[in-house]
């Protein structure tokens, strides 16, 4: 399935954030959305899971425009998983196990999902009984990801998946993304680490000033510099 934004405009109260965004993330690929802080990456990503609606323009998932139809939203949200930038915005249950099984129960797949195996996939074996709000930020991020993996989506939209992870955590993440791609999952992620984006993505796009200002299958240092992106993050290690 593909995710498409067509001439999307969106404003919060008095702040115009998206000002005519045209963007495509293709099936079977890893797409990285780059952009400086406050460019509107999170805002754009939330549109693909129906959490935000454009003021004008269209969001298409697999060619179908997202509308207010509840049945359609349910279908889209079960196929396009969304991992929040800040795990505190995503976790909602008193224990890790309850949180990870939340999505599967809502889409009636709880019987088929092995929660322990899902936790092991993100390196949290045996953490099922812990309280998410007492876990470290990096651990919470992994719980949040497990909660989406458990729904077995076709597409995963991840907002800043490596922000706040240590080197080993980020590296494990690259491995996990490769695994997901091999399993046929398509991925759209945002990052301001150009190095990480280049390491995992088939295609990169830069969002700046409310529009997509660059798209390509790699990005040079000069281009990155021109758009005010950090280029050294992972490369320097």
């Amino acid at each position, binding site marked *: 399935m593909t995710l498409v934004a067509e001439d999307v405009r969106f404003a*919060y109260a008095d702040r115009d954030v998206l000002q005519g965004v045209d963007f495509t993330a293709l099936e079977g690929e890893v797409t990285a959305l780059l952009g400086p802080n406050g460019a509107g990456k999170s805002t754009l990503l939330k549109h693909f899971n129906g959490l935000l609606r454009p003021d004008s323009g269209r969001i298409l998932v697999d060619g179908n425009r997202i509308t207010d139809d509840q049945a359609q939203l349910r279908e889209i949200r079960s196929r396009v998983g969304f991992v*929040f930038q800040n795990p505190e915005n995503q976790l*909602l249950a008193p224990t890790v196990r309850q949180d990870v099984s939340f*999505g599967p*129960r809502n889409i009636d797949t709880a019987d088929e999902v092995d929660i322990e195996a899902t936790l092991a996939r993100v390196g949290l074996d045996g953490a099922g009984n812990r309280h998410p*709000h007492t876990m470290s930020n990096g651990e919470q991020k992994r719980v949040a990801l497990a909660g989406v993996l458990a729904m077995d989506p076709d597409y995963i939209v991840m907002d800043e998946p490596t922000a706040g992870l240590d080197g080993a955590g980020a590296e494990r993440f690259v491995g996990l993304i490769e695994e997901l791609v091999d399993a046929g999952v398509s991925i759209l992620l945002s990052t301001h680490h150009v190095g990480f984006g280049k390491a995992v993505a088939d295609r990169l796009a830069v969002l700046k000033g409310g529009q997509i200002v660059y798209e390509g299958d790699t990005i040079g240092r000069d281009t990155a510099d021109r758009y005010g992106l950090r280029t050294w993050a992972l490369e320097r290690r």
Partner: protein
Amino acid sequence: MHKTLEGVQQSATPAIRGPLQVYLVVLALGLTVTAPSRLAQVIAAAVFLGLAIDAVGVRPLRWLAVPVFFLIPGLAIILVTTPGHGLIEFGPLTITQGGVKTVLDTLTRSGASIIVLGFLIASTPVSTVIATLRRAGLPSVLVELLLYVYRAIGTVFVEAERMQTAAKARVGYSNRRAKIRTTKLIASTLFLRTIDRVTHLDEAMRARGYAGKAPATAEAESHGYGLSIGILAVLLGVRIL
């Protein structure tokens, strides 16, 4: 589209500003709560609704409905438990004339009070309110307690809203069964999360030098003396008439 309370307060343009606004609202609130006639309450509500709309527009004021919503169960109980001359009977429940009168009375009295306070809440940052109350000599223990309650209530709302968005993203409200399950789950986490957040907030405040006395910045200048005097005259006038 989306605007937080802080955002609304910052862009508000109240006709009466500064410490004067706090004093006026406190006085008007006293007059409204003790008003002898329903007319006096309706007039106070109309005046302050006008002031609030003038300050922030209509949209942000829909939040005023939240406290009214909390009143409803209480009013329902009053309606069927007040003894007196029966009007309508539903099985074992009797609605009495006295009950209807008490409910109407409570509704206008509390509705009007909420609107009077709403003008202040919608258009003035909490720090101004605190500073004014402190300067007026309210004991600092009381002021800090007010502030603590205000923070806790604010946190409950913020956390509840975050978790609702989170639940939406994972199809938490797709049918009735899911809705009930999600609401139960959020309710059971809300308390823990709120305590956790308030504790962290406290930590963050102490880390930046808070020692039981919240920083408060009062707007030095008061504006709208004439209007305030006029309003007080009207509120007092309807009592005398």
